[in-house]
Each structure stands twice: as structure tokens, then as C-alpha cells.
């Protein structure tokens, strides 16, 4: 009971902060849209994979990009938070570290999911207007949201693991270069995954984000050699296992966390 109240408190705090930092939310939506229109249209004029235009192909990748940047950054941010902000107050409170971790994950995932949800709504509008060739059905939207939720939890956990173990924010840029960009570019988000050479294709195959993109592309566009390539259940299984492992490691990392 008491733990639930604490978890709620943490979630409430993240949600309030999210709703008050409008400019951050706006930019987190604008960036993916710029990708969709500039890269999507630019490359779309001479590229297409499968039966649809490049923009549609890119769309699931854009959803993942939003989740990836938002969730990982959210987590890593606690390296600041525990120095100068509210985190210290939370760490001396009589709450289990596991509950703190869960509260953080829920807060971060809520923020991230709201952002991707807005992009889904925009996507639906675009497809009605005939600009984006994607079949949005109740089922495909539902599956997409579930995929996004599961992968977001795992990504948020990665961020929190790193943030909880870092002692100063100095390594922050490195995380973008060595974690976020590789996870994004080597996930099939912006080009199909089969035509890559040895090492890269191995990385693609062990990258959990690959399976999130694949699953969403399969259900939003269709399956085929350049689209959804794996069984959607396999995709789902992989990201679920990934997120479960990350949550387990994160719980442990939080137990060990010091200022």
C-alpha cells in the first residue's frame, strides 16, 4: 500500500513536469515530423521498399526514434537529478529502491507514450488525407501501441541503469554516439535490414529495437522481404524478453545506486 502511494507520487511528478515543459514536448514531436517529411520526401523521390512509398516505410522507424530518444534521455537524466534536484529527496524516503525504479519507469514511459501517441494521431490524419500509405485499423493501432510500450519500458530502463551508475554528467554525449545512434541506425528503422554486410547484419540481429521496428512495420504496412520480415510473435517475444531483462538489471542497479 505505502509503496503504491510512493510509486504514484513519482509518476505524478514526472507527469506534471512533462505537462509543464511544453517546449520540450513540442520539439519532441517536431523532430520526428521533420524526419518524416524532409528525409521521407527527399529519399522517397528515388527510393521505395515493397509496395509503399519511402515515407510510409519510414513511419514505424520514426515512432521508434521518438521512443528511443525520449526514453533513454529520460533515464540518463537522473544523473543530474540526484545531484541537484528532487532525486535526493526520493532516495532518503522510506521507499524500496525497486518501487522508485518502477515509479520512474512508469513516469518516463508515460511521457514517451504520449509523444508517440500524438505521432500516431498525426499519422492517422495523414493517411486519411492520402499522404501516408498506411493501414490504420483498430488492431494495427493496438498492436503498435503495445509494441511501443514494451520497447519503451526496456529503453527507459537502459537509460536509468546508465544514469544511476554515472557519477557526473560528463559522459552524456558518449551515450548518444555509442548507444542511441547505433541502436537507431542499425535497427532497420530507415533502411531494410537484409542487405547489410557481415558485422553490421549481426548487430542488426542482436539489436532489440530491430524487432520492435519489424513488428510494427509488419502490422502497419505488411509483411514481405523488405517490410516485416519476422513472425510478429517472434518480434514480440524478443522485445518482451529484452525489456524484462533490462527491468531486472535496473532493479539491481537502483539497489546499488548512491549519490
Amino acid at each position, binding site marked *: 500500500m505505502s509503496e503504491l*502511494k*510512493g510509486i504514484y507520487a513519482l509518476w505524478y511528478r514526472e507527469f*506534471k513536469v512533462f505537462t509543464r515543459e511544453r517546449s520540450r514536448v513540442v520539439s519532441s514531436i517536431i523532430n520526428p515530423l521533420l524526419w518524416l517529411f524532409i528525409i521521407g520526401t527527399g529519399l522517397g523521390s528515388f527510393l521505395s521498399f515493397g509496395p509503399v512509398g519511402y515515407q510510409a516505410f519510414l513511419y514505424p522507424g520514426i515512432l521508434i526514434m521518438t521512443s528511443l530518444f525520449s526514453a533513454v534521455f529520460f533515464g540518463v537524466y537522473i544523473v543530474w537529478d540526484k545531484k*541537484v534536484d528532487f532525486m535526493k529527496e526520493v*532516495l532518503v524516503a522510506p521507499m524500496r529502491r525497486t518501487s522508485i525504479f518502477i515509479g520512474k519507469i512508469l513516469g518516463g514511459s508515460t511521457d514517451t507514450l504520449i509523444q508517440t501517441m500524438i505521432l500516431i494521431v498525426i499519422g492517422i490524419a495523414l493517411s486519411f488525407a492520402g499522404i501516408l500509405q498506411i493501414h490504420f485499423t483498430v488492431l494495427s493501432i493496438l498492436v503498435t501501441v503495445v509494441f511501443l510500450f514494451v520497447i519503451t519500458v526496456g529503453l527507459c530502463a537502459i537509460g536509468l541503469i546508465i544514469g544511476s551508475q554515472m557519477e557526473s554528467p560528463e559522459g552524456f554525449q558518449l551515450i548518444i554516439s555509442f548507444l542511441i545512434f547505433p541502436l537507431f541506425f542499425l535497427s532497420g528503422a530507415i533502411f531494410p535490414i537484409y542487405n547489410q554486410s557481415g558485422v553490421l547484419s549481426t548487430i542488426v540481429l542482436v539489436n532489440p529495437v530491430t524487432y520492435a521496428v519489424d513488428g510494427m512495420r509488419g502490422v502497419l504496412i505488411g509483411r514481405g522481404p523488405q517490410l516485416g520480415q519476422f513472425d510478429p510473435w517472434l518480434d514480440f517475444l524478443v522485445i518482451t524478453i529484452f525489456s524484462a531483462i533490462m527491468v531486472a538489471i535496473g532493479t539491481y542497479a537502483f539497489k546499488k545506486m548512491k549519490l
Partner: protein
Amino acid sequence: MAAIIDIKDLTKTYEDRTVVDHLNLQIEEGEIFGLLGPNGAGKTTTLLMLTTLKPPTSGTALINGFDITKRPDKVRKSIGIVFQEPSTDEILTGYENLKLHGWLYDMPDHLLKERITDVLQLVNLTDRKDDLVKRYSGGMRRRLELARGLMHHPKVLFLDEPTLGLDPQSREGLWRYIEKLAQEKNMTIILTTHYMDEADRLCNRLAIMDKGKIVVLDTPKQLKANLGGDIVRLKAPHLDQERLKALPYVKKISPCDGELCLTVENASSHLQEILTLVGKVDSVEVRIPTLDDVFLHYTGKALKNSDAQGGWTSGPMTGEANE
């Protein structure tokens, strides 16, 4: 009665620098205990270890019977802390910060509302409670942190420089509230401060720390008495320190702010002799010692002007006092 805080050989080392050095200390329930010391003495580090936020390098402490290294969860249930650094959330309102605190400490709703009203009144923030904390002034933010720390009435409350940046009314109000908590709720309060008047007024006992060690520990009254006399402050054109030192009732001579301070046993009856010996004086002041004198005596950190040029020195003033 067993001590509510029992610190055993508590040590913290950063790389090769020992900032808290085999600290041993017992604090009784209901006590208001002051931890004084110059900047960097290790006060905050000690509090962060006691509140389970930093792991000790060696040694440990029992708080309310629980070991800070083995049962941090139990320890956290017994304590509250107001940090030296800000830890309220700027993007939330004052009221929201307090409400979250209540949730984190699992306070029932009615009690939460009641306490929030109380503490807001105490720190005089009732009419600003719905403003975002980033729109507060520095002192208002400090007051909010205090209100939050006092809200859940822990068994042991740590206050790290609680009144830093507060105006005189707020300080006075806070002092009274702290005293009330200790008396009525039997709460144990450990505070650090650089204000000697505050320490003198509030604390049952004080420890002066320097370089990670406790230099002296006693009641404020006893500490002042231990200096062994009154303070005579002299300004004179020709001061012969050697001859003053030779006087049996002069316990200690130290420079203070360009003048000379003597610690003199029973100053009122010896003043005439001292003045005769010094000859012409520009000014003289006799007073009973304050905690400032005690602090300077044990830590020796003061702006000294011993060579008429002035300059910072930090070496301990090995006094001639109280052998």
C-alpha cells in the same frame, strides 16, 4: 537509555583524502545536537552517510537501533533531512512539493493536509503555495525545504545549515519550532550551522569538527567556561606580548581583527594591572566569551593580522589556554 544515534569509527575517504576520520559519537533521544566546523570539515559528508545516501569507507552507525550499512531501509523509516543543497522540484508548486513528500512518507490524507497547512504557516508561505518553486526567491525556497523536512515528524531529524539565507523573523520562528519538536515530540535533532548564536541558543550539546575529526564536544555553557576566562580586547600603540604572557592570569593571547585578544581569568579584578602594564591604550573591551571565541580557539581559522600586514592563516592556534 541507549543512544538513538551511535556512531562507531565512521570513516569516509575520497581517493587518498580522509574527510571523515574514525568518528565516534553518541546522541541521546530528544537531544538537539550541533555539529560545527569550518568549511570542508566533513559535516555534510557525515550527515549523508548517516542518512544512508553515501556509503562509509569503513565503520558504521546505529540509528534508532538499525545499522546504516545493513538496514538502510529501516534507517530511512526513522529519519528526515533538510539538505544543504536545494532538493525541491522547481517545476512543481510549493504545495505539490509538500504533497509529494507526504506521499513518499505514506502519510494519511487528513494528517497530510493538516501538516501542510501547519508548516506553510510556520514558514510563512501560505499565500505563495501555488506558485512554481522556480518563481520563489532563494530564502523562500529554503523555507520550503525546511517546511518539507519538518512535515513528517521523524524520530531523528538532520538539518544541514537550516537557516542559511533566512531573514531574522524566519530564523526565530524556526528555532522555536525546532525546540518545540524536541520537547513535545521527543524528536532528536542534529544540525550543522555556521551561526554560533544559533548553536548556542538551540543545542544541548555541540561537537566542533575539523578535518574529519571531532576536536571537542560539550555543552555550549561548558565549552565557554573551558576557555578559562573572559575576553579582553585591546588596541594600543605599543603592545609587549611577552610581558603580557608572563602574567599568571592571562591564559591566552591571540590576534583578532588587527587587535589583540587576551583570555583572562577573572578579568574584572585584573583589568587595572593589565592596563598599567600596557600603558597607553586606544580602546579596550571586556566581555564574557561567546561560542565564536570557542570556535576560533579550537579551529584556529580566522583572519589574522599578527604581523600588521594581515593575511589568511589557517594553522591551529596552539593556545596557551587551559592546560
